[in-house]
């Protein structure tokens, strides 16, 4: 056997280890590989299907002018062979540079900094609403299994996942803006209003940081409606999932033990059932958070919410690969991070897993 340099062998040890730290290192490394793999998929698929980004981004007349076309191709490196384009992209990516968007002609990093917080803001509120209500409704549903509350909650949550979000958005907008006038309308702030100085990019939080409560209230009133619409689907998912997890846990021997002790049913549910169920529910909430961000494209469209979804839409229509990849990567990172956090949580909370680690 060849002697292995000390540094490498430590690294190997970490990768082969089964402890907590090696686990995280391994997960982060595979996540990074996953992201690079995704760029390959995106590149391949967009190259395999016909579609000309130049035509999509230049006007009719400009497209008929070969000089403009050549300049455009040169500017964005489209004149290079595809593998070269890909290598260049990967090279920049490994430095954290997502390239220049074909549709906005600006660096994708800049674009994302602007659009991502807007979506994050509504998605966060949506997921919090959905998780709290989903936990309550799902538990209620499981506990009253097959009785009236359960039946109602099941139909309602199934309806929640069956509603086309773009249509829900439209109906809510009509009712709460047009009919009732409770919602201020589309966008993030009143027309002409000054956004708070950017710290997080989320207007409500930035306004609070700035101590500007008027702007906070305004920003909040604008984001409530899209957030609620976004929450509806997630609520359906989380309610159904909570019900299933709670039912599954209710069948465990240790719940029977708890009941055999004569504890109040509320204590049995809260202490013996919800605690283990919570882990699974957080997992699904985390994963649905990522899909909320992706799903916001349809909601943002209706509310003219200048977020990731709108940006993704423009990038897709413009066959703007750097833009599409940028959005995908943000969402994938959220998805992967959520999974990672949840896995770590599992290990921290569940002593059995933790013991197995040692």
């Amino acid at each position, binding site marked *: 056997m060849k002697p292995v340099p000390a540094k490498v062998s430590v690294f190997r040890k970490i990768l082969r280890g089964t402890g907590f730290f090696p686990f995280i290192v391994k997960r982060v490394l595979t996540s990074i590989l996953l992201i690079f793999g995704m760029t390959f998929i995106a590149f391949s698929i967009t190259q395999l299907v016909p579609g000309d980004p130049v035509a999509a981004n230049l006007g009719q007349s400009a497209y008929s002018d070969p000089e403009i076309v050549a300049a455009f191709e040169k500017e964005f490196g489209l004149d290079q062979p595809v593998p070269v384009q890909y290598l260049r992209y990967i090279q920049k990516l490994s430095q954290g540079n997502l390239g220049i968007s074909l549709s906005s002609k600006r660096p994708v990093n800049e674009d994302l900094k602007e659009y991502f917080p807007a979506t994050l803001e509504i998605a966060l509120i949506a997921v919090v609403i959905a998780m709290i209500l989903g936990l309550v409704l799902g538990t209620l549903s499981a506990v009253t*299994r097959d009785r009236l509350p359960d039946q109602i909650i099941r139909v309602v949550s199934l309806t929640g996942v069956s509603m086309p979000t773009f249509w829900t958005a439209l109906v809510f907008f009509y009712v709460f803006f047009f009919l009732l006038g409770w919602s201020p309308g589309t966008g993030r702030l009143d027309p002409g209003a000054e956004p708070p100085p950017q710290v997080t990019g989320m207007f409500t939080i930035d306004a609070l940081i700035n101590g500007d409560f008027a702007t906070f209230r305004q920003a909040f009133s604008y984001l409530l409606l899209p957030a609620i619409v976004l929450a509806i689907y997630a609520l359906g998912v989380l309610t159904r999932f909570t019900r299933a997890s709670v039912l599954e846990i209710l069948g*465990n*021997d*240790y719940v*029977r*033990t*708890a*009941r*055999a*002790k*004569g*504890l*109040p*049913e509320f*204590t049995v549910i809260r*202490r*013996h059932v919800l*605690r*283990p169920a919570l882990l699974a529910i957080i997992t699904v909430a985390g994963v649905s958070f990522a899909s909320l961000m992706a799903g916001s494209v349809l909601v943002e469209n209706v509310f003219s919410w200048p977020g990731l979804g709108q940006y993704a839409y423009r990038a897709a229509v413009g066959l703007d690969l750097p833009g599409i990849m940028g959005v995908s990567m943000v969402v994938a990172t959220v998805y992967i991070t959520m999974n990672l956090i949840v896995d770590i949580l599992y290990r921290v*909370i*569940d*002593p*059995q897993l933790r*013991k197995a680690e040692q």
Partner: protein
Amino acid sequence: MTLLSVRNLTVTLMTGSGPADAVRNLSFDIERGQILGIAGESGSGKTMTALSVMGLLPYKGKASGSINFDGQELVGFKPRDFRRIRGKDVAMIFQDPMTSLHPMLTIETQLTEHLRHHRKVSKSEARARALELLDTVKIPDPKTALKAHPSQFSGGMRQRIAIAMALACQPKLLIADEPTTALDVTVQAGILKLLDELRKSQNLSVIVITHDLGVLSALTDRIMIMYAGAEVESGLTSQVLTRPRHPYTRGLIDALPDSGADGKRLIAIDGMPPELGKFPSGCAFHPRCSFAQSECKTGVPNKVDIDGSRRIFCSVDPFDTSDSSAGVSR
């Protein structure tokens, strides 16, 4: 003094093909300080009998008949009435200590939560009691054990903890559903000894449910043999095990290897016990019984009382003169 008196208990469960009786017309008594053993093959309704005393029948399960516990009628008890006595006056330990303790809660929480609920004691009193309990069930280093999680203990230790949990509120009746089946033979003996000591020291009544006739012979005062949800024979342990009168009991005992006393599982008679909902008519045992007559297929078996303390359910009673002719080998 009779603590628990069960009369004509029938337990109806919901199965895929509709309701079916898992326990049929069962009657038995337990005196204070006595240990009753219930034995029978898998599916004979032992656990359902226990669960109906606890009010913990599975979803859509129903008990009828009469269960008189310490002067209260438990059939028709409301869930909240059951919660009042469960864990306090009647406690249960389950077969598999690996799954019956909560994996995420500390031993202290699991030992004291019902104590604090039923007896309204303070946290420190509860902890003192928990230490005492762990000591009673011979857990080494009780102080450390309180902070630990179940995963840090072996199966035998977990079962001891489960027993400690059951004893926390000083119940009058303890139901142990196959308390040793999941454990190694050497560990089994320790648990059985513990149960016996507890019965003596705390004047506890115990129901021990098992597959294992060896367990019963050492521990119990009386036993009841069940088949297809019904009693087939009951009486003093020594009499039933040495001179079985019912063909099924006899088959069970004959099937034991000669060294059977050391606790081998039941090796039953030819054929399989019937499934729930498919119990044969008449005497449910007739398809497997070598003494079956035509009347066994239709008529409900006769109850035969023997010496006032024993009875069998068999219309034929082939071992009536067992003393001289049959020569039961053990």
